[in-house]
């Protein structure tokens, strides 16, 4: 199970990469493997400002639908449009080409509440 040490994580199996006040967000290797073949990533909240824990989108695998929760409050400034045609990138490269959204964070202090790679590792028992 790939859990890069330079990223932050959530209990909802999302990863967060902070650069300045912009956070890039996707789902973890564990999440994509549990979901199975991902066939649709729906994000209809582009340009919206949401609070942490709100649903920003949905990821659909062949058998299941899962909500995507925003880890940090802010404005959704970018959606990875490549996923519209190739949602399977979430399976093949969850931390790279499979990224989902970029958020302009409104409260960077929330970053402290995210999990480290080690914390996440113990959450999933890896």
């Amino acid at each position, binding site marked *: 199970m790939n859990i890069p040490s330079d990223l932050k994580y959530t209990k909802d199996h999302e990863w967060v990469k902070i650069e300045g006040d912009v956070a890039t967000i996707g789902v973890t290797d564990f999440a994509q493997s549990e979901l*199975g*073949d991902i066939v*649709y990533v*729906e994000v209809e909240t582009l340009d919206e400002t949401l609070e942490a824990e709100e649903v920003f989108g949905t990821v*659909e695998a*062949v*058998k299941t*639908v899962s909500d995507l929760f925003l880890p940090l409050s802010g404005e959704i400034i970018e959606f990875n449009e490549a996923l519209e045609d190739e949602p399977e990138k979430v*399976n093949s490269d969850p931390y790279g080409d499979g990224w989902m959204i970029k958020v302009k964070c409104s409260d960077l202090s929330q970053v402290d509440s995210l999990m480290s790679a080690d914390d996440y590792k113990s959450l999933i028992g890896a």
Partner: protein
Amino acid sequence: MKNTALSSTHEALGAKMVPFAGYNMPVQYEGVNTEHETVRNAVGVFDVSHMGEFLIEGEYALELIQKVSSNDASKLTVGKAQYSCLPNDDGGVVDDLIIYRVKEDTYLLVVNASNIEKDWNWIQSKNDVGATMRDLSENYSLLAIQGPKAIEAMQSLTSHDLSAINFYNFVVGDFAGIEHVIISATGYTGSGGFEIYCKNNEVKQIWDKVFEAGADFGIKPIGLAARDTLRLEMGYCLYGNDIDDTTSPIEAGLGWVCKFTKDFTNSEALKREKEQGPERKLIAFELDERGIPRHGYDIVDSNGKTIGIVTSGTMSPSLGKGIGLGYVPTVFADIGSKLNIQIRKNAIPATVVKLPFYKK
């Protein structure tokens, strides 16, 4: 939770296991899309040993079967099977099943795993004719070997000519070194192939030999997730989703297995329903836009009013679009009708289509 005789084999192959109808079953091995394509283009093997098997025997076997099942089992000769359903007294369906005529006075009924106890009690309650019933569900295993290469890949395992077994026919014979195996040209995928019934202590040997024989044909193990996408592309009903105790076989499109030339449970009411036309129908639909319908989503009209409900839905791996089944009032059920599927906040347009979704 129960294991099949192969549960540990699946685990060793790296399958993701899930509880299904009380059994520990493989839902996927490599990935549902790959497994789906394997069955459509080559050959794949499902362990569906959770299915239930009842033997109905003796002089009165046919009489009992004719009473409880809607299809006409008197048409069966030894070596033939038929799809049928068990109607209840209230217009619904106890279960759908396959009936095999194994010997002159011996019939094998193959029922859904989730309904074994219910079906057994139901059939027994109707058995005032004195047929002998035996529940073999715990003793028998079932492998479905499905795909266009199944015949070629499996021929070396038996002395029977597999290409000579017509659809819904079967032989009892040698397979993979085991005698008295049922080799049945049936399945739930629409891609051809066989279902193999054997005893639990024989299934591991058969499984291993099937994979040896199929190696050159790209054979792979297939999980329940792909079983569902494969059957849905054909529009085959799944009990518990598309049909249940409250859905009539007529509205579910199973009128073709209701033979009103004989009497059976609730046949008079079902005959009337067929003549008058059902108030609602199970329809097949494709989404016109991007989205994936799911079991339980609302079907809505152009004004946003709920007119029905999705009973099965998925992203079709073969078609690359959202497909589903659902019940709507008959007025909305014509092929080509437009309706909408409520997917979260959006009503996604869909078109009623003819089955199957997948055409070879």
